[in-house]
C-alpha cells in the first residue's frame, strides 16, 4: 500500500468480512457523556477544575444549546452552588489556644 492511495486488497477484504461475520456485532466506538452526564459530573465534582467542568459541559448536549458566554455562566454557577459549600465543609477549624 502506498501512502497516496488508500487501498484494501482482496485478501484483507476477506479477512475483514470474516471478522465482521464472526463477531456479528456493530462496529461502533467513541465516548459521549450524554445520558451519563449526571453520574459523570457527580463522580468528578470533588476534584474537578473550572476548565475541566467547562470542557465537560461543552462536550455534552448542553454545549449544543448554550452559547460560550452562557457555558461560562453555568460553569461558574455550578462551582459556586456545588463546589463552594463542599470546600467549606472541608476546611478545618482553628484549634483554640490552651
Amino acid at each position, binding site marked *: 500500500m502506498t*501512502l497516496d492511495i488508500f487501498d484494501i486488497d482482496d485478501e484483507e*477484504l476477506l479477512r475483514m468480512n470474516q471478522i*465482521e461475520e464472526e463477531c456479528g456485532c456493530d*462496529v*461502533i466506538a*467513541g*465516548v459521549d457523556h450524554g445520558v451519563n452526564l449526571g453520574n459523570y459530573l457527580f463522580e468528578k465534582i470533588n476534584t474537578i477544575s473550572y476548565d475541566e467542568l467547562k470542557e465537560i459541559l461543552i462536550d455534552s448536549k448542553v454545549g449544543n444549546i448554550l452559547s460560550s458566554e452562557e457555558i461560562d455562566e453555568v460553569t461558574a454557577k455550578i462551582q459556586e452552588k456545588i463546589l463552594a459549600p463542599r470546600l467549606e465543609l472541608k476546611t478545618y477549624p482553628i484549634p483554640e489556644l490552651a
Partner: protein
Amino acid sequence: MSENRRILRLSDRQEVHASLTRVSQKNVDDFETFWKPRILSKNQGDEYWDWQYKSRTYLSRGNYEAYAIEYEKITQGMMLIETKNHRSWFNPEVSLVYVATLETAPWNRFSIQSDPMFQWIGSNLLRFAKFRSQQLGYRGSVGLHSLPRAESFYEKLNMNNCGKDPDKDNLTYFEWYKSGERQ
C-alpha cells in the same frame, strides 16, 4: 476527496461500490433525518452523539477530521478522528490517530435489525484511520474507546485491549500500536 470503497450488500451478498468522503453538511443532514429517529428509538448508547454539534465544534479545529461512507447518496457510516494530540498508551512519545467517534447507520447494525443492509462500513472507516496514521508518520498506530457490544470486533482485529478507562465512562480502550523508532 472521494474514493471508491467496496462494501457488502447483505440482501444478495454482492459487493457494491460506495464512496469515502470528507463529512459534509449533507452527511450531517442524513444523520439528523434518517439516523437519529432510529437511534433514539433504541437503547444504543450513542443516543446523544450529535454530528451537527460535532461538525460545528470539532471540524473548525485543525486537529480533527471527519469522514463518511455513502452509498446511493445516503450516508452509511461516519467517523471523527483526532490527528495531533493523542499519544500511545504504550509509549507517550508515540503519536497516534484517535478515533473519537465511529458509527454505522442504524440500518447497518445487528443490534437494531437482524438483517442489516450493508457490511464492511465500519471496517473500511477504521482501516482508513490506520491509513491516515501511516500517512501522518504514526506507523499505523490508532486508538479508540469501544462501546461494550463492539469489543470482540476490535479484539479480533488484533488491537491491544488496554482495559477499562475510568476517565472515559469505563469504556475499554483499544490500540493498534507499532513500536519502533521515536517520531
